[in-house]
């Protein structure tokens, strides 16, 4: 790495959480994993967790490479074994926060047994599952979550099997926190991961994500932007949804949200309770009694809270600086140049908006108008136009691509 490249990499806002010396990563353009890792890194930052006290364990596959890119203690395990390795790490070193970041083939296919048992034990780990409906690294084979009738390299005539509903599986097995997002829902995802990192017990976050190179291409669903557009239009937010009803059909609605959040003793808490009953209050694990370990945990929790507050304060400060700087821009910069740029942009956007308005389906606008309260009407109508504009672009792109197959 030349000095300039190193300097450039280290200037990245992710430099503290990602191993910049390992960039560029291997993921394809349009893949969802990159934005998920970004969300994860951001969530870790915001959570206030000490980066030295966080370990990431991955299995095999595209998502399996996450462990190698995050700047924490990390293990890239064999296929499917990320959860048991994480289990061992957590139990051996209870002060660590342990996160499993892997794909659905790894976690719920070859590692499915470990997944349900870790959930049953309420093992204190966070499992983030990138669900892209395909085995990407090996060339796009069918996985346990590939929707019925979707094409993969091993179901060339459409998937005749029916997929797992992962939140339901996790729920039935005993997971105490279950959420699903798509890779487009960055803000929700950051919040959700932060929440999972701050709680105890088995937390499962499924992230529906596009595999542009294989799943989208084979099913003629366009590129990464088309997938995000699809998520925007078809994701239905439903916190607390009954997990039995969150199946994903081929190109159907995707129910997202936090479905489960409940308290139950973790594996270690339950074990401690038994051992204290048998051995008495002298019971020690790795030379520490339960109250000693609890005190350590409390102290760490306070440190985390302090760090979290510091991060928040810094963000606030940064926001104020940004506001100040932007307020100063017209004064400092050349008055001629700046407005010209703005004008150009405005012109362009006006053009698009016009075009969009003309072509926008009347129904959408009408619907928005009818449903929205008076104040929000203008805003909603504008966003509807925007969406319509995007649609046109997508349609153009789609026209170039081979015709979509209809499967319903």
């Amino acid at each position, binding site marked *: 790495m030349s000095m300039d490249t190193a300097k450039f990499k280290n200037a990245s806002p992710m430099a503290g959480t990602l191993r910049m010396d*390992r960039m560029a990563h291997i993921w394809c353009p349009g893949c969802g994993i990159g934005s998920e890792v970004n969300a994860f890194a951001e969530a870790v930052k915001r959570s206030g967790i000490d980066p030295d006290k966080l370990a990431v364990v991955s299995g095999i596959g595209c998502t399996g490479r996450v462990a190698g890119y995050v700047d924490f*203690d990390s293990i*890239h395990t064999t296929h499917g074994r990320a959860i048991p390795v994480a*289990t061992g790490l957590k*139990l*051996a*070193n209870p002060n660590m926060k342990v996160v499993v970041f892997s794909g659905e083939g790894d976690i719920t296919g070859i590692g499915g047994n470990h997944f349900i*048992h870790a959930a049953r034990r309420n093992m204190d780990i966070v499992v983030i599952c990138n669900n892209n409906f395909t085995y990407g690294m090996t060339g796009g084979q069918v996985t346990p979550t590939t929707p019925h009738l979707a094409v993969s390299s091993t179901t060339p005539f459409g998937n005749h099997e029916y997929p797992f509903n992962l939140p339901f599986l996790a729920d039935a097995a005993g997971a105490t926190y279950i959420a699903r997002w798509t890779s487009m829902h960055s803000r929700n995802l950051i919040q959700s991961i932060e929440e999972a990192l701050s709680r105890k017990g088995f937390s499962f976050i499924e992230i529906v994500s596009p595999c542009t190179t294989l799943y989208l291409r084979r099913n003629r669903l366009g590129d990464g932007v088309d997938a995000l557009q699809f998520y925007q239009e078809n994701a239905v937010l439903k916190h607390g949804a009954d997990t039995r009803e969150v199946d994903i059909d081929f190109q159907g609605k995707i129910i997202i949200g936090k479905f489960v959040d409940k308290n139950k003793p973790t594996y270690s808490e339950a074990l401690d309770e038994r051992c204290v009953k048998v051995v008495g209050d002298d019971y020690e694990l790795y030379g520490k009694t339960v109250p000693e370990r609890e005190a350590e945990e409390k102290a760490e929790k306070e440190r985390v809270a302090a760090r979290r507050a510091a991060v928040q304060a810094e963000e606030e400060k940064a926001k104020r600086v940004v506001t100040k700087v932007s307020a100063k821009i017209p004064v400092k910069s050349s008055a001629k140049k700046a407005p010209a740029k703005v004008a150009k942009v405005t012109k362009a956007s006006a053009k698009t908006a016009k075009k969009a308005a003309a072509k926008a389906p009347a129904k959408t606008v009408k619907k928005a108008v009818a449903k929205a309260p008076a104040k929000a009407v203008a805003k909603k109508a504008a966003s509807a136009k925007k969406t319509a504009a995007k649609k046109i672009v997508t349609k153009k792109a789609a026209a170039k691509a081979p015709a979509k197959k209809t499967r319903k």
Partner: protein
Amino acid sequence: MRKYKTKTVAADPRGVDSGPHFMDGDHAIAEGALAAGCRFFAGYPITPSTETFERFAERAPEVGAMFIQMEDELSAIAANIGAVWGGQKVMTVTCGPGFSLMVENIGLAAMTETPMVITNVQRAGPSTGAPTLTAQQDMMQAKWGPHGDNAMIALSPDSPQECFDLTIEAFNLSEYYRVPVIILADETVGHMHEKVVIPPADQIQVVPRNNYSGPKEDFRPYKFDGKGGHPMTRAGDGYHFHITGLTHNERGYPVVTAEQNKIVVTHLMEKINGNADDIVRLEENDIDGADVVVVSYGITSRIAVKAIQDARKEGIKVGSLRMITIWPFCENRIRELAPKIKCFVVPEINYGQMVLEVERCAGGKCKVISVNHCGGAVHDPEVILDAIRKGSK
């Protein structure tokens, strides 16, 4: 008593149940592990190794150790790998069918140079075979189980006392060479009750975990020089280690090239095979001037004693070479002895496994008679005696 290339410390008295005991080999293995400082055990029950597992479960709370019964052997060995990088010394026990499942991550442990002890209390196979009957059929699997080239250490006890002693040695070797060490016991030794004397803690030598403590920028979890004694690290120490089963550099990052693969594999092989003199331990009796040398291990070596005694009564000059270390194989000693004797007699409870190594190293310079005997029972000493008679002619 084995001498180690590194500093040792006295055992933590908490894990040492000093004094004379009457216990079976399986229990002695659990006690050996606790004495050696093992404080983490993830396993899955399987006959005839379950007693080790149960004893550890019972002793764990009073010693301050973690015990977890996993959902299968795949996860048991995986959890152990996680626990090592979490900072603990770990062990698991199993037998053939479970070992076959563990092989996947024994390979990962070898590749990532993760120290751990795996006991295989062998039972008759193949497949489910005869779960309660003895065998020595997994000798080659211990060496060749995981795919790809890698070198392992395997030790074979012949008594409950040695189950205790060798478990401590296994931990010490595994810590120094950062390699999985396999204890190849068998059902007979595992279930045999005998006197086991556990020494006081200060008389037990333990190789402590060697954790790196230098500056962050110089941290390297690996050094590919074909030697042992390199430091590792544990989660939470701030070094942000990365370990992977992929071919990697000394920082632990993947470097998937033919050149790097050669560097890594050469190191993995050399650190064991190149240090065979340090690792190999044999017990020899009356080898000087012998015409026949009986090469044996585990329970078979105790059956052979009777055959050797009977042969001596008949005036045959017969010696005994008991392999305490199975892998790396005692190549040099066999090569040395081959031209001096008439015959090696190799009794083992399998279709003929270690005899292949003896034949290879004898190189045609003396006869080699395999007294193979499929799983299910120990030999009749008479069969070994017959082979000794044949060999002496």
